[in-house]
């Protein structure tokens, strides 16, 4: 199917149902979009796609944005379901019910979450200790998961748990789809340093999962999980903002608005810090563009791997410098630390473009950005990956490699 035909198909979808119609909800519209094969263009017909190349989805989105005011971002509708759940379901899901599940992911009727990390298994997620024991046609799961985004509103959880403790850690894991409404699933908010709870702790007490909800074979959970994590990396990859965009533009505006009195020398020192950050942000933006260029030409190099570690550390410095620009105003945290689910504050991230919003956002991000170098692979793990996979340096000796998981020291 050509680009023109894809655009025509989008227009015929819009004839049937239009997202701007007051009567059409997101679920209504996206359901019909799915049925037209315009949800995941690269998926097979009948599963929300048309078997096209993945880039055709951006043509679809472009056409939708051109012809309607209302545009539903996947990230807002069902980030984990669409970003990670759908690809895993497509690759490993059983045919029965697959179409309906994909459709409900896309419409946002079923929110998904990812049950990987555990209190004792962060970077070493394959060393996790929650356990599933076979009982008839079911598995019975006990353990605790942590850092679970959206668990409190999710219908389905992608669960990796240990089904065999007597083999080395990677070999004893299995992957399940867990109905989050099952008895024994308890979800508690996990409050972070901002006072918000973006994440949850999920407790699993004698939770029964039918064997038919295992994805992949028993003991192959790690391989299935890798599929999910790879989709997470590409989902986190993000886009290059425009020149001078992103947090650095906010920093520049705060500097221009600053009424703090500074000596010439102090001002010069601050300006040099900010100039360094500005240049680094520009280099990072250009590196993302360069990564795209080499990807297009089919010779991807190391430029694609450096983004996560460089960006997370840069942004922390940018936000911290924002606070330094604010001076004594930085003593005040207007947002307060009342323990709560994220609400108003998340709207700061897209940012109203005014002085007040910028100040609040800087203060909030000083705290929130501390997680950037932990979530999605810590900077230390990322440096191991750069060192070992990109530069080819040897790994650290592993003491947990060829021994049964149950014999590995942990704590």
């Amino acid at each position: 199917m050509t680009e023109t035909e894809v655009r025509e198909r989008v227009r015929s979808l819009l004839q049937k149902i239009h997202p701007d119609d007051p009567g059409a909800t997101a679920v209504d519209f996206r359901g019909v979009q799915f049925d037209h094969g315009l949800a995941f263009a690269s998926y097979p017909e009948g599963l929300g796609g048309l078997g096209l190349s993945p880039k055709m989805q951006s043509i679809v989105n472009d056409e939708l944005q051109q012809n309607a005011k209302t545009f539903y971002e996947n990230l807002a509708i069902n980030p984990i379901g669409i970003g990670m759940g759908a690809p895993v379901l497509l690759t490993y899901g059983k045919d029965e019910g697959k179409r309906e599940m994909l459709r409900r992911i896309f419409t946002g009727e079923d929110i998904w979450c990812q049950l990987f990390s555990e209190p004792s298994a962060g970077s070493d997620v394959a060393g996790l200790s929650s356990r599933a024991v076979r009982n008839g046609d079911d598995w019975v799961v006990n353990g605790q998961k942590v850092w679970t985004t959206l668990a409190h509103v999710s219908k389905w959880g992608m669960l990796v748990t240990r089904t065999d403790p007597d083999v080395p850690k990677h070999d004893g894991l299995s992957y399940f789809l867990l109905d989050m409404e099952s008895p024994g699933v308890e979800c508690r908010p996990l409050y972070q340093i901002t006072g918000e709870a973006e994440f949850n702790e999920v407790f699993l007490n004698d939770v029964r999962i039918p064997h038919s909800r295992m994805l992949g074979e028993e003991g192959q959970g790690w391989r299935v999980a890798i599929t999910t994590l790879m989709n997470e990396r590409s989902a986190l990859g993000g886009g290059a903002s425009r020149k001078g965009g992103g947090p650095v533009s906010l920093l520049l505006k705060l500097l221009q608005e600053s009424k703090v009195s500074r000596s010439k020398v102090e001002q010069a020192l601050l300006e040099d810090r900010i100039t360094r950050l500005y240049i680094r942000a520009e280099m990072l933006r250009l590196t993302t563009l360069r990564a795209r260029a080499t990807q297009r030409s089919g010779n991807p190099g190391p430029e694609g791997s450096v983004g996560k570690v460089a960006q997370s550390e840069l942004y922390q410095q940018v936000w911290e410098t924002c606070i330094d620009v604010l001076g004594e105003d930085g003593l005040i945290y207007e947002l307060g630390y009342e323990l709560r689910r994220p609400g108003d504050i998340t709207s700061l991230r897209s940012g109203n473009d005014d002085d007040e919003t910028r100040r609040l956002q800087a203060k909030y991000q000083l705290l929130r950005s501390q997680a950037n170098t932990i979530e999605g692979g810590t900077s230390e793990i990322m440096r191991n990956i750069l060192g070992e996979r990109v530069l080819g340096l040897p790994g650290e000796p592993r003491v947990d490699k060829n021994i049964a998981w149950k014999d590995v020291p942990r704590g």
Partner: protein
Amino acid sequence: MNFEFSEEHEDLRRTVRQFLENESNETAVREMMAEENGFSREVWARLSEELGLAGLIIEEKHGGAGFGMVELAIVMEEMGRVLLCAPFLSSAVLATSAIELGADASIQADLLPQIASGEKTATLAFSEAGDPWNLGKIEMTAAANGDAFKLSGQKTFVLDGRSANIILVAAKVGSELTLLQVDEDAAGLTRESLPPLDPTRKLATLRFDHTPAKRIASVDVRGALEQSIQRTITALAAEQLGGAQRCLDMAVDYAKSRLQFGRPIGSYQAIKHQCADLLVEVELARSAAYAAAFSADDKGADIAAAMAKSFCSETYAKAAKRNIQIHGGMGFTWEHPAHLYLKRAKASEIIFGSPSLHREKVARSVGISAA
């Protein structure tokens, strides 16, 4: 921003790399750096005749290859990788640009073919003590004597100033900045080598004492020289990138093969993470250098060049210093080439202005500092 190198670009890189691996290996570099003029006329001739590098950016009508800044960046990156000892930056980039952008047409037709063929090398003497990279601070004034001019005074930090055959001097005539040419054997010219921090790139002080000079530009050359320096720092950033990448490669190779406590030192995170950090810096520097080259003709090229010079300078210095540390005691020996890269890195950071000087330019242009 386009970042795509064509097949022809890759061919150029391969050809240049192959040539330099033979002609500018470590033995050759050490031999040349011990020489006062610091390069081999024979290698320069081959580099000019076989690869056309002396006239890389000279127009074809003047006997050059007619290439642009992207090709220049590729060549400089390769030269930086092996610390080529040759008057390429002075002759093929700086002086060539000054002639092409500032000199009168008849002069261009006379000088550029001699440079392109490799028969002669050229340099531009513009720096004066005190504020050497600031064209606005040039004080040397050419005294008019009918059509002829005489120069008195001193130019310093002149790249390959002792060996250059064609000597261009930036000096004032009245309130105008102009270009003059001085013969190698002109009366009253003394050329004195400076003992360089970086022995792989030679510097000299040129003294003029009523030295006869020929004016070769009939208009003010301030803009042309600024443009020439911008090209030169863009090229230099690519050279720094090549050097930084080589330092990273050396460090990684050593970290893989050096065993301590029974295993390669690169398996320790203390070393591995330093290598990973350098990789990040080098990749960012690569973007800086390539962006400056690819956008050299666009609006904002001056800022791209300033960002590249400041970022690549600091990256190269970091990589060179880290490389020494990762090599441990071996990295501190004369025998190991690591120190040659540190010296090149630090010197190339200083010439044409420090990173902070270039950051100031960026700061003013984007409104961080008052314009």
